[in-house]
Every structure is written in C-alpha cells, then in structure tokens.
C-alpha cells in the first residue's frame, strides 16, 4: 500500500476553516460507513461459511472417512468434481485471456476512436447474456459446429493426451463446455482490462512513442506493465464466473466422474456447480449435505486460486 504515508497525514484538519465540525462529521460518517461495509462483508461471509459448514456437517460425519454410515466417500466423490471444475475453468481461461487482452487492446489502442466506444458497449452487453441462453446457444448451435474441429484435433494431435481418446457425437464434452465458458468470461475480462488500459497515463505512452517506440513496443513497455494487476483482477473475476457457472455447463456437458485428461471424450468430467444443480432437485437429507459439502469445497478452491493470483501480483513487484 504505497498510499499509506500520505493518507495518514491527510485527516489533520486545517484549523482556519469555517466548517471544521462539518468536515469532521463528514469524515467520520464516511469512515464509519466504509468500515461498516467492510465489517458487513465480514459478517455475511462468516454467515455463509457457517451455513455451508453446518449444512455439510452431516455428510462429513456420515462419510466413509469418519463414521462410515453412508455409502459414499467424501474424497472419492469430490476429487473428480474438483478436477473437472479446475480443468474446465483452466482451459476456458487459457482460451479467453489472450483473446480478451487482444480485444481490449484493439478497443483501447487500435480501433478508430469513434468505433471504440461502440465496440466496448457491445462487449459489455454480452456480459449480460444470461447463462441459460449461453447454454441454449452452446448446445444447439455451437456443439455441432465444433465437431469437425474436434475430429481434426483428435486425428492429427491425438498424441497430446488432451486430444486423445475416442470422441463420439454429439460432442457434449468438456472441451465444448470450456469453449462456451471461454465465450462467457470473454466480455468480463475484456471490459475490465479495457478500462484499465484506457487509464494508462497518457504522458507515459506519449513518452514511449516520442522515444521512437512502435505502437506494439509502447503497449509492451507501458500499457501492459501498467495494467498487469488489472489483467490479473479481470482474469480472477472471469475465473470466478467460470468456476461457479452452473446452467451453461449443465446444458452442454454430458457428465461423468473420472480423472481423464481426454477433454474430447464424452461423459468423463463434471463441474461442482453443475453437479449441485443437477442433483439437488432429487437430493434430500445426507445426500443434500454431500452436495453442500462440494459447494464448500468450491468455496475453498476459489479462495486458493485467488490467493495464488494475489501472491503472483504481489511478487511481480509494484506497478508503475
């Protein structure tokens, strides 16, 4: 927090002012509101955590690992789901991040200025398409279109474990789900990165250009370093959506529970959120607890991934 030294001095009231008490009041109200909001989030999260824990406790107690009264094992049930969730989100982000940064740069630095606000608007719009619609579109329109591509990947790149296996049509596999997830997170990552790129100090950019840098060199040396933490934050937001996405995965993926890396094969993977949604309707008692336990796991998983991302940002040094 590089701002610390400045702000610690700032609340010192300038004594000459007429409305000192008003200022003090405003300051303290504002400060209380801010701190209150922070605390409220603290409490809400604590409530959610308590809720998740108490609700999933019966499953934990009854599981094979502990009392053994239920016929499921927490680890055996949850790990394949975690694997599927992480794999799907990772592939989605691998596809989405480079493309998003490309679009964001295109809008902020390449497109004609008049066009750029319209394009930005279009991208924002896409962030609002409900996931049910992404599911509908993905299942009906996209999956058949991807079939030839999967055929090619499987035939020519089958030696890479990811593309190995025997895909069967319809291609309701993890790869399709990841592609749709990528499309879903594109607008989010793009919108945030674009906003950050646009905030790059104009002077620095002009300085780079004046020193003879090409447009790409300016971006590489000024814009991207400036926006690094923004890109990470944007990707994390996208990841949050990808990890927790329910409907689209549910409507596209034919689920299974294995640790297979073969993303083109059908019925091998499932995600935690989609699994909760598809099973919760008929679940009750300890089975419901088990589902809520997987929700708790997703919670922890998201935190771990976010923590790693924060650590990366912090380690890569202070931004300009």
């Amino acid at each position, binding site marked *: 927090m590089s701002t610390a030294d400045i702000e610690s001095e700032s609340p010192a009231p300038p004594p000459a002012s007429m409305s000192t008490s008003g200022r003090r009041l405003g300051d303290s109200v504002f400060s209380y509101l801010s701190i209150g909001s922070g605390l409220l989030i603290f409490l809400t999260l604590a409530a959610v955590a308590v809720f998740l824990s108490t609700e999933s406790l019966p499953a934990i107690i009854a599981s094979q690992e502990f009392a053994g009264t239920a016929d499921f094992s927490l680890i055996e049930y949850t790990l394949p789901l975690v694997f599927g969730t992480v794999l799907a989100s990772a592939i989605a982000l691998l596809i989405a991040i480079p493309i998003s940064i490309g679009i964001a740069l295109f809008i902020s630095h390449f497109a004609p200025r008049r066009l750029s606000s319209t394009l930005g608007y279009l991208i924002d719009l896409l962030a609002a398409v409900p996931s049910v619609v992404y599911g509908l579109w993905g*299942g*009906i329109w996209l*999956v*058949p279109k991807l079939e030839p591509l999967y055929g090619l990947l499987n035939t020519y790149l089958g030696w890479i474990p990811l593309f190995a296996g025997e895909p*069967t*049509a*319809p291609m*309701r596999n993890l790869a399709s789900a990841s592609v749709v997830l990528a499309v879903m997170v594109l607008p989010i990552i793009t919108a945030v990165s674009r906003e950050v790129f646009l905030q790059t100090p104009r002077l620095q950019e002009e300085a780079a250009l004046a020193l003879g840098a090409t447009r790409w060199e300016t971006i590489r040396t000024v814009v991207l370093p400036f926006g690094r933490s923004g890109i990470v934050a944007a990707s994390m937001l996208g990841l949050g959506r990808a990890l927790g996405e329910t409907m689209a995965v*549910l*409507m596209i993926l*034919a*689920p*299974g*529970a*294995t640790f297979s890396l073969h993303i083109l*094969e*059908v*019925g*091998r993977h499932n995600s935690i959120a989609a699994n909760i949604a*598809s*099973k*919760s*309707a*008929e*679940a*009750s008692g300890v089975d*419901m607890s088990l589902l809520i336990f997987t929700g708790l796991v997703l919670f922890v998983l998201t935190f771990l991934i976010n923590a790693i991302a924060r650590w990366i940002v912090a380690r890569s040094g202070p931004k300009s």
Partner: protein
Amino acid sequence: MNVRKNKLASLAALGFAAGIALTACGGSAEEGTSGASDAGGAAAGGSGYAELSGNLAGAGASSMGNAQTAWTETFKGLVQAEGGDITVTYDPTGSGTGREQFLSGQVKFAGTDAALDEEELAASAEVCSGEQAFDLPVYISPIAVVFNLEGVDSLNLSPEVIAGIFAEEITTWNDPAIAELNPDADLPDTAVVPVHRSDDSGTTENFTQYLSDNAPDAWTHGPIETWPIDGGQSGDGTSGLISAVESGNGTIGYADASQAGNLGTASVQVGEEFVDYSAEAAAKAVDVSPREEGRAENDIVMELDRTTTEAGTYPIVLISYLALCGAYEDEATGNAVKSYASFMISEQGQQVAAENAGSAPISDELRTEAQTAIDGITVG
C-alpha cells in the same frame, strides 16, 4: 417405486370406500357448478369456489410441470368465474426438493415421482397437524423410448434388447438381436449411442425398474435413480435429453412421451405383440396393477405391474403422486387444497392435463378412491 412396506395393516375395504366416495362425489357435483360456464360438468369440487382466496403453493416433480401449469390456470379460471380469487403456484423443483419442502411446511402440497416412504409419512405428522400425509396418483404418463437413426422411423424392441442397448452390450444398430425383431427395417451399421438423464430423476427410476423387472439378466444394475454406468452421452432434464438425442445419429434415449416431438419412438414388446405408446395403453397398464400393500387406506400408491402380458398395455409408465396432508390447521388453506386436489383428479382436470401435457387420464375407479381420500382431509 418405493419398496419399503408400511407396517400398518391395510384397511382396504374397497366396497365400503367406494360407497362413501360415490355419495360424497355426487353430492359435491350437484352443488353450484352453475358459475363455471365451461366447466363441462366438473366431477367434484364445484362447490365453494367463491369462498377461495389467497395463495396456495406447491412444489415438486418437474415431470408434471406442464400439467400443473394447465391445472393451476384452469383452476384459477374456474374460481374467478364463481367470484373467488386464488393463486395456486407450483414450482417444478424436482421430486426430492418438493417432498422436503412439503415435509418442512414450506409448501402445502407436493408432486412427487416416488410416493412418500414410511419415514417421510411418519415425519409428516409434524407439519400436518398430527395427521399423516398421503399420496394420490394424479399424473400418469407413458415413457417413450425415442431414437434418432437416419432412414428408420419405427422400431420394435423387446425389453432384453432395450436393456442390452442401455447396458452398452448392443453397440451397433445392425446387431442381430435388433435385426431379428425388425425384419423389414433397413438397419445401418451405425454405432448405438444410448443417452441417459444426467440428473437424478423419476423417469430414470421408472425406466430402469421396467428393465430390471423384464430383463434382469441383461440389466443387472437394478432400479436406480442415478445412472450406474460411467461415461456415455446424457442430457440434463427431459429437454436436455431430447436435444442430445436430436443432435446425434444413432442415438437412443427415454423420455416423457409428450416430449418425443419428431423423434422416432420404439414399440415395446408386451407378451407376443409390440405396443406403441399411447395414453390409453399407459392408463391400462395402471388399471391392471394392484395397489401397494401395507399403506393406509387413503394412501393410494400403485404397485405397477411392468411384466404384464395383457394385450394393449404399455408398461413403461411414470406415475406422479400428489402428496397432501391428512389435516390442515388453517381453514382457508385446507379448503383451497381440497378444492384444488379434487379439481386435479376430476374428469375435467384429467382431461385438461391430457390435452395440454399429453398425460393419460386416471380411471373412474381410481378417481372415486382418490376423492374419498380428499374428502377425508380434516380442516381447521
């Protein structure tokens, strides 16, 4: 279906019950149906619509979702025509959630693909003012075996072959086992792609029950709600399954018959003949089945005879039940539930569901029994 037996002795004195039912039913039918212009002779529950008001919430099986929409709206129309004003809602959240919400008092009635079991019945007394809850069959629907195979519109399949296909033993369409049953069809050597429901559903349970009753050697997994075989194509919900079957070639699945759309449907072997699904054939399969023993008299649960060889029956049938309380503390709620339940099982109600959701109407005999059970609900 549920196999756990209630310890309670069955008091099924059928003649006695039917006698009461007839009087009760006749009585209510004659009273004031005047207001409902298009009611077309509502069999029951015509009375007292004018006094109904407020909200009534139900939840449960998505299988009867379409039927419930038709029921709630038609019921609302009937009530409004008599000057009452009530909003009945039904959340198709799934049978399990529906039962849970019903047992915790969140909804006043539930729709469920599996009748309440002993434990749930015992637990129900807590929210039902001391009386136990009970089940009524309100929605009977054939489950069609749908397939999408280029150049083939109709197929004859025996239970063994269906089981072989879904157990992934039969893997190509020109397999001798299929060809034998379909001498006229031009079967390609396309791979058979069985598609199942990825969510837990009553449809899967009824379908696998049929398979394990009729072809226990070919289907060794027993009746299950969750698909037992890893991998394979699947779809979420009926619409998801249908869309998966539609988008592949050589795909085969099972779904509520009203959703079959343009897909080919298989005729199923019953005895020596092959029967195509129809509402009548499904209703007949229910009619030839006995009631499940060991349940209270008002708890009407059918023990579906899926191995029947009687001509003209279609044995892959889904029965959805309505779970109601034996007593309602709140008078308005109780009366609303009674009127609405009576309407659902009435001839008109069943007809509305048949027309709008493709279900099979319940028989008159079943209706009389169900009406007796509804009339037995204590209110206030």
